[in-house]
């Protein structure tokens, strides 16, 4: 059919619908058009340049040629709470039940570089993740888990180099050399300033620590993903889908620029950059977001940075279902939400996935609820058929139009951020934070006005008993960790600790030094995370946030 014929047909169709709207009205507040047709792709829609083939530039349809026909995504459940011993048990349970990779959640003191007995850690030890103070804790965390067989993701940012060093040191003790290690550190400080809050140092030394890791790993830990440039938390903070990928890709541009400025060749490190997306409620919008993000990143790497290797242009992504979309009300409904979000991530072509548990609007998940979340992935993988063909929604008039729309919005933001002087400057000016806050406020007001329905929250509500059997982390974890620290400080070689911390301090003051080997030396003699970060705080100072409202 020629385009004129489709246009004529569509006009006739719309006129017919409009004539009947008075009698048969549509729902209010609908964003997409009523119907998408080949007209939305445009007459000059070029399959090869816009979509191409999976595993080929611009990777719109996926980063691997066979996608899930080869192997499923990595089912990587984010877990960690209380002590290293309790978390180790959870990890081994997940691996025994079909989990295919580990993902460590650390408590806030660990994420912000405080030992468990620091006054700043009061009340927080072991709460949102596992408490790690030294290599001694890390040895217990990975006890009986062969680090040459499993890949491990660690949600750690400001002190990423310290936790990576501990992981390398544990592997050494298991007889596993660094070149065999596979995994990811989040290591994305820019989104910490903008949306997540676990920063320690000011931007400049933070960027140095990040590029130090890029360089060290490119030579010593070549299979390690050195950063997970994260949109997840930007979305959780309230951004839209387009803002999520735009602000994150802008952060990615800043990291690539920093590494090139530090003297690295783009193709030496870009293949180890990875991303982290949110799988939100609107299934088709999310699929389009994943597809658009791959197209934008490929173009950025090829055209802006002149990358040559295809691997450098691939946006490989871990995904987590949207925690902020879970409701405390009628928590069983969250199982269904997570299943839909899982479908979105899979049709979007994710490389790995964490599924949230139904009780996470209330507390950390129990073993039972985590099992349901893992089973959800397995059902989507093995039973739904969604994983049987590559990019199953490619060619859908609506999904292609939406992919184009999100891509366009993304480029507009990147341009705006370039004008502001790049992502670090845009964050410094509060621009990115304000954009996110405005979207968050609009969402909340839409919910309160009933323009957006959340089942069980502002419609279909019911009286219910508070849920039972929530996981609770006992306050005694803090006491236990403090006692372990006291014992450690008494029995380790304190002269060696002192000497290595002094060497680190000296190296930190010299911008040309790569700090990874020094941190590794500190870790090996059981210097604590708080001591190592304390030295770096002394040299680098601490970031002072500009609060925007």
């Amino acid at each position, binding site marked *: 059919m020629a385009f004129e014929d489709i246009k004529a047909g569509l006009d006739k169709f719309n006129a017919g619908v409009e004539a009947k709207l008075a009698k048969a009205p549509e729902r209010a507040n609908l964003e997409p058009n009523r119907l998408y047709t080949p007209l939305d792709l445009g007459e000059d829609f070029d399959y090869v340049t816009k979509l191409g083939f999976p595993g080929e530039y611009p990777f719109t349809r996926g980063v691997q040629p066979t996608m899930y026909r080869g192997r499923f995504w990595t089912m990587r459940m984010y877990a960690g709470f209380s002590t290293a011993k309790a978390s180790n048990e959870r990890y081994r349970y997940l691996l025994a039940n079909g989990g295919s990779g580990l993902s460590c959640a650390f408590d*806030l*003191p660990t*994420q*912000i570089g*405080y030992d468990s007995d620091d006054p*700043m*850690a*009061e*009340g*927080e030890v072991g*709460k*949102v993740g596992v408490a790690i103070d030294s290599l001694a804790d890390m040895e217990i965390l990975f006890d009986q888990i062969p680090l040459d067989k499993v890949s491990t993701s660690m949600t750690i940012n400001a002190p990423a180099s310290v936790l990576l060093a501990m992981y390398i040191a544990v592997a050494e003790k298991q007889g596993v050399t660094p070149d065999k290690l596979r995994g990811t550190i989040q290591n994305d400080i820019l989104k*910490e300033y903008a949306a*997540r*809050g*676990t920063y320690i140092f000011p931007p400049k030394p933070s960027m140095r620590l990040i590029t130090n890791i890029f360089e060290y790993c490119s030579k010593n830990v070549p299979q390690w993903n050195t950063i997970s440039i994260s949109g997840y938390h930007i979305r*959780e*903070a*309230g951004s839209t889908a387009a803002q999520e990928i735009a602000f994150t890709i802008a952060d990615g541009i800043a990291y690539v620029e920093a590494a090139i400025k530090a003297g690295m060749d783009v193709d030496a490190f870009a293949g180890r950059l990875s991303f982290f997306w949110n799988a939100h409620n609107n299934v088709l919008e999310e699929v389009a977001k994943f597809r658009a993000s791959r197209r934008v990143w490929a173009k950025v790497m090829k055209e802006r940075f002149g990358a040559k290797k295809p691997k450098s242009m691939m946006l490989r992504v871990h995904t987590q279902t949207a925690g*902020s979309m879970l*409701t*405390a*009300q009628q928590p069983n409904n969250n199982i269904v939400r997570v299943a839909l979000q899982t479908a979105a991530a899979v049709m979007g072509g994710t490389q790995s996935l964490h599924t949230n548990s139904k009780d996470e*609007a*209330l*507390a*950390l998940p129990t073993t039972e609820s985590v099992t349901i979340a893992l089973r959800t992935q397995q059902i989507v993988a093995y039973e739904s058929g969604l994983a049987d063909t590559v990019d199953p929604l490619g060619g859908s008039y609506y999904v292609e139009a939406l992919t184009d729309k999100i891509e366009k919005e993304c480029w507009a933001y990147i341009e705006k951020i370039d004008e502001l002087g790049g992502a670090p400057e845009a964050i410094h000016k509060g621009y990115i934070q304000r954009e996110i*806050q405005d979207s*968050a*406020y609009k969402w*909340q007001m839409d*919910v*309160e006005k009933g323009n957006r329905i*959340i089942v069980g*929250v*502002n419609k279909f509500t019911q009286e219910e008993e*508070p*849920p039972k059997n*929530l996981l*609770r*982390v006992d*306050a005694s974890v803090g006491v236990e960790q403090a006692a372990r620290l006291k014992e450690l400080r008494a029995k380790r070689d304190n002269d060696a600790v002192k000497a290595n911390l002094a060497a680190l301090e000296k190296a930190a003051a010299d911008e040309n030094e790569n700090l990874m080997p020094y941190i590794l030396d500190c870790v090996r003699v059981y210097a604590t995370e708080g001591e190592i970060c304390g030295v770096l705080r002394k040299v680098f100072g601490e970031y002072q*946030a500009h*609060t925007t*409202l």
Partner: protein
Amino acid sequence: MANIRVLVAKPGLDGHDRGAKVVARALRDAGFEVIYTGIRLTPEQIAEAALQDDVNVVALSLLSGAHNTLFPKVVELLKEKGLTDVLVIGGGVIPAADIPGLKAAGIKEVFTPGTPTSDIVKFINENVKA
């Protein structure tokens, strides 16, 4: 009623400030004077800010699970500074089982996920001493 001044504060190390910022903005839109502290404040810093800014309400937000330790500590420190008339409320991911204990410690109301901001505005208007 005279201008009601509200300090929205995040004690502890938790960086989740979407809720705190949305509530702060909704309270401002409802006509209150709102001061938002930003993240990562110690209970001491919050009590001091409440004193310096002469607020009528302290609204605490915490999603990390440290509420049982940190919320009561803020109330205690406010008392030490003689701020006994300040209305203290809290919100975040707080299990129902913890709420009676927090109320006994002087947190007048605890708002959990899904609460409309209008409920918080109403509660402040009905309970504040200004």
